[in-house]
């Protein structure tokens, strides 16, 4: 029982992080139908801005988090304005390839400009405390991550569902030609979406850096692909789907090694099994868990 609770908490932590990153993917996709392959690297930039805030400026945790979210949000908007906006009329896939290029540029550019030494946050950014509750160890970092992720998700959900801006976002994802006719600036809505999506990625990056304090420019690569998978499995374009997809991926990744042995799968088979499961989900539900099949007109 303790074993299960422990693994459940582990999965919740990892899943929350994946969910935070998947949210940004999903929001941008919902509005622009763009798979922003640079998202993983924007997440990495968020973590690195955290290094800037906490070490170079010596800020405590919350200001570092906010600073990084703001800087990364601005970076995201800039990327959208410079690299994606000129291509809004072009084929969808040329934007995707541009995004791929932006991602490569960010990670290798940062490597070239800052060198290869791994980074870390100061130990006192979040002083780790471990509580032992009847055989289950839980650290304050885990609690912070899970709670903060839940808060951010709730906040985002409120923005998208309850505010005018959120309505505009949903409207654009519903019909991007009609909305400008209603007097809503498409550009502003898209910028706002990028701002929100990338600052969530930054929050994810900082929390990731607190939980796993070894940062390097390539850290966003794998995480980004995985969050993309999570967003799609949840049903890309739907923020509840992204959250559920992220949690699902976290649970699969934790529980396959945890219980696989009892059915004869050693932990070396984690990746094939995890991705096989996701593949089956997509075959059974071709538009993901929350995705709605769009009707096609002929």
């Amino acid at each position: 029982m303790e074993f299960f609770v422990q693994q459940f908490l582990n999965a919740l932590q990892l899943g929350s992080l994946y969910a935070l990153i998947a949210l940004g993917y999903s929001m941008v996709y919902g509005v622009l139908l763009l798979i922003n392959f640079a998202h993983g690297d924007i997440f990495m930039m968020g973590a690195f801005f955290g290094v800037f805030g906490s070490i170079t400026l010596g800020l405590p945790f919350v200001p570092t988090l906010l600073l990084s979210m703001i800087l990364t949000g601005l970076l995201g908007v800039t990327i959208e304005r410079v690299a994606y906006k000129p291509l809004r009329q072009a084929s969808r896939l040329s934007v995707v390839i541009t995004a791929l290029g932006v991602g490569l540029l960010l990670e290798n550019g940062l490597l070239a400009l800052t060198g290869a030494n791994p980074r870390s946050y100061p130990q006192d950014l979040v002083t780790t405390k471990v509580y032992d509750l009847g055989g289950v160890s839980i650290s304050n970092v885990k609690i912070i991550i899970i709670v903060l992720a839940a808060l951010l998700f709730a906040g985002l959900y409120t923005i998208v569902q309850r505010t005018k801006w959120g309505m505009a976002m949903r409207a654009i994802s519903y019909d991007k030609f009609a909305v400008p006719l209603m007097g809503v600036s498409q550009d502003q809505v898209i910028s706002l979406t990028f701002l929100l999506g990338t600052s969530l990625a930054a929050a994810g990056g900082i929390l990731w850096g607190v939980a796993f304090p070894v940062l390097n420019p390539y850290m966003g690569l794998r995480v980004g692909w995985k969050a993309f998978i999570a967003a799609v499995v949840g049903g890309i374009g739907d923020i509840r789907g992204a959250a559920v997809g992220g949690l699902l991926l976290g649970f699969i990744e934790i529980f396959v090694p945890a219980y696989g042995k009892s059915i004869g799968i050693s932990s070396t088979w984690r990746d094939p099994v995890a991705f096989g499961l996701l593949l089956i989900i997509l075959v059974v539900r071709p538009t993901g868990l929350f995705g709605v099949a769009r009707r096609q007109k002929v």
Partner: protein
Amino acid sequence: MSKRFMSLGLILVVVAATLGSLPVAAQEDCDFVGEVVIGVIGPLTGDIPKVGQSTVEAAQMAVDEVNAECGLQIDGENYEVVIVVEDDESKAESAVAVATRLIVEENVVAIIGPQASKQAVPAGQVANDRETPMISPWSTNPATTKDRPWVFRAAFLDPFQGPVVAGFAAKEFGAKTAAVLYDVASDYPKGLAENFRDAALASGIDIVAFESFTTGDTDFSSQLTNIIAAKPDVLFTPQYYNEVPLIVQQARELGFQNPIVGSDSWGTPDLIDLCGDACNGLFFSTHYAPDIATEVGQKFIAAYEERYGFKPDDVAALTYDAFQLLFTAIESANSLERADIRDALASIELFEGVTGQMSFDEQGDPIKCAVIIQIKDGAFTYYDSACPAGFPPE
């Protein structure tokens, strides 16, 4: 891009170029009669850029040092050492391409690198086929040098290191049970993990958990929870210095209190900074201990720190040793023919390097001792040593 900007750019470039007539570098006092061109291959980009950076830094230092002493002496004449650095991007195909390029286009006398086995194995094939000596400083896969007379390495092999660590765990902690956590998709940790398992089983230690993850993972909580549930006396994790802090910290957070031991891939000073207090008191096996290093070692560490501002890691030390081996071989061969250099390399006996004394066996693998290091008060401290049977000869 408008033409206006293009023209402006062109004009700027021309102006910049016109302004930039700079004085040439100062002439050396040595009268060099020629050059010895050595190829260096390292992963400057890709998964492990830090390894590439250390490679280049150590190589540059080795070359500058030898050139400051008028290069290599062949037939009483001074030859300047020149290195050509290539990036293998952590890709096998790039390693093959750059090794071929170095051999046929740059016409190097020998190659130092590539570092990781993934690149060193195919590049070794190229070097062997084209009869060019190659020393991989860091590769531990037996296939790199196996049946390849032209390929050497500077690091010791997993079949030696695994038993050293297992023996240490049994002796020091009286361990009856052990667990292993390793990266299944990377061949160094996997090879070492398996060698450790076999050696431990042979010496009566029970392996209660043998858990794996994949390169790039940062969350090990699931595997560590499994390991903790199995209650091992000691945890062995042959991972790289950038993964060790995560493993150690997560293990402690999940309530694992028993010792954690590691291998030579821990041996980077960055480990201490990244890991903080969590790593204090842990042990690992490696090539040399900075505090009891030989004279060569002390000199190297001091010079490296002076030049780059931080302490060298194991990659830097092994790369530096590979260069010293090559220099020794070239001077004792007294020739720039690749075949002569190879023969001289193979016949090196009891070479005194930063990472200790070493000789090559018939496969081109080094025979050398391992030391056990304890991380104590934020420094690597000598604890014990273990040597292959009959080495060094009395």
